[in-house]
């Protein structure tokens, strides 16, 4: 199918973009890479009256300043092979769509779109990153865990834009792993798990982050699993942590996989990720 008609503004700066969005009101939408939005336009799942193109608004670029700040319109492909990018993200990137869609799809777009089965939101939550937004109320920073609300719904208010995301750098004593199962390469995950462990010199886990996606409506930190891991070697608690993760998630199930299967899958992926990060 073809998109319904809309007006189009190419914003040459952040100020122009915010002004155009304010002008367009509730039915205006920003477009960057368009890898989720244009398919939704083509299928007429969404019918915005105005599209504000951010590709020329100067919102791209990656900078390191105690953390990695990634401009909203930086392409996903620019993170591939960048040594400064946290290894959790580098493990997850091959699962983000395909070679060609990563060329066009943006980091900020994936965050703002907030698909419950998207890898970058899960990684940002697992790493304790932040989302920088700007809008009619001014610039503000939102912790990733508070940014994602539910399917395709974030803490963004009308007229606000994601302008950059802030990704913690890898710390010493830290190890991580990302695990995902999808029906085909590049498809949406059935379940996915991100694990980050920090150890003391003796190898005991002193801090853990375990987050799951696709089996919940937004990226979900499993704090009970994290508490189980702290004080262990990691590997010795992997099996119990998997069982606990399986019990904690409550996926709806689909024609592809029953809820029972998805819980078991999440448990297996959690165990596997902890063992690999151990």
């Amino acid at each position, binding site marked *: 199918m073809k998109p319904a*008609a809309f007006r189009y503004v190419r914003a040459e700066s952040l100020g122009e973009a915010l002004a155009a969005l304010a002008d367009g009101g509730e039915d205006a939408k920003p*477009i960057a890479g368009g890898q989720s939005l*244009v*398919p939704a*336009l*083509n299928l007429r799942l969404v019918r915005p009256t105005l599209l504000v193109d951010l590709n020329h608004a100067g919102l791209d670029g990656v900078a390191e300043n105690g953390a990695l700040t990634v401009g909203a319109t930086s392409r996903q492909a620019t993170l591939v092979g960048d040594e400064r990018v946290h290894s959790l993200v580098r493990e997850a990137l091959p699962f983000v769509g*395909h070679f*060609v869609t990563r060329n066009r799809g943006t980091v900020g777009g994936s965050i703002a779109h907030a698909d419950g089965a998207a890898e970058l939101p899960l990684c940002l939550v697992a790493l304790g990153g932040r989302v920088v937004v700007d809008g009619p109320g001014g610039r503000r920073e939102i912790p990733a865990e508070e940014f994602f609300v539910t399917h395709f719904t974030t803490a963004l208010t009308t007229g606000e834009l994601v302008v950059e995301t802030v990704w913690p750098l890898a710390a010493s004593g830290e190890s991580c792993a990302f695990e995902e199962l999808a029906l085909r390469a590049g498809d949406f995950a059935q379940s996915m798990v991100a694990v980050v462990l920090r150890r003391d010199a003796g190898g005991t886990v002193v801090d853990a982050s375990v987050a799951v996606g696709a089996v919940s409506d937004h990226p979900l930190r499993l704090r009970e699993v994290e508490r189980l891991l702290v004080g262990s070697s990691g590997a010795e608690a992997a099996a119990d942590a998997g069982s606990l993760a399986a019990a904690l998630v409550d996926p709806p199930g689909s024609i592809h996989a029953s809820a029972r299967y998805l819980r078991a899958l999440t448990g297996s992926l959690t165990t596997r990720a902890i063992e690999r990060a151990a």
Partner: protein
Amino acid sequence: MSGIELTVNGLVVREAVEPRLLLTDFLRHRLGLTGTHVGCEHGVCGACTVLLDGVSVRGCCVLAIQADGSRVDTVESLAESGPLTALQESFRRHHALQCGFCTPGILMAATDLLSRGRPTRAEIADMLSGHLCRCTGYTQIVDAIEACVEPTRGRGGNT
């Protein structure tokens, strides 16, 4: 309608377009460049892949108006009326196409992938996961692309 100006296969093109016109439809219906195929029209099949400013993108997920000021290269740019490119010749030699519907998109994505360095067989297969071919079973496509990996170039493609 908005006026756009872009360079398609080396030629400057000026057209008036509706904002909702997809780049694929602009190429096929306005310019008659029917080598770019339209399959799923929602970014899954890869048949519409073209180069936008030298980088492979889904033509069905880009608006023509977004390409204003850009360079677009389609499958027609590879061999114009001259000899086949090494990649195209490799596809012929390895019997890497049957019906040919997916071939233009794969050729453009593979042209991009090969321009960046020396992809491994696994990286070629990963790239092809974004391109649906219902005829070949992919083995010959991987063979054809792998045969075009330059043996002497360093990884990263900067040499």
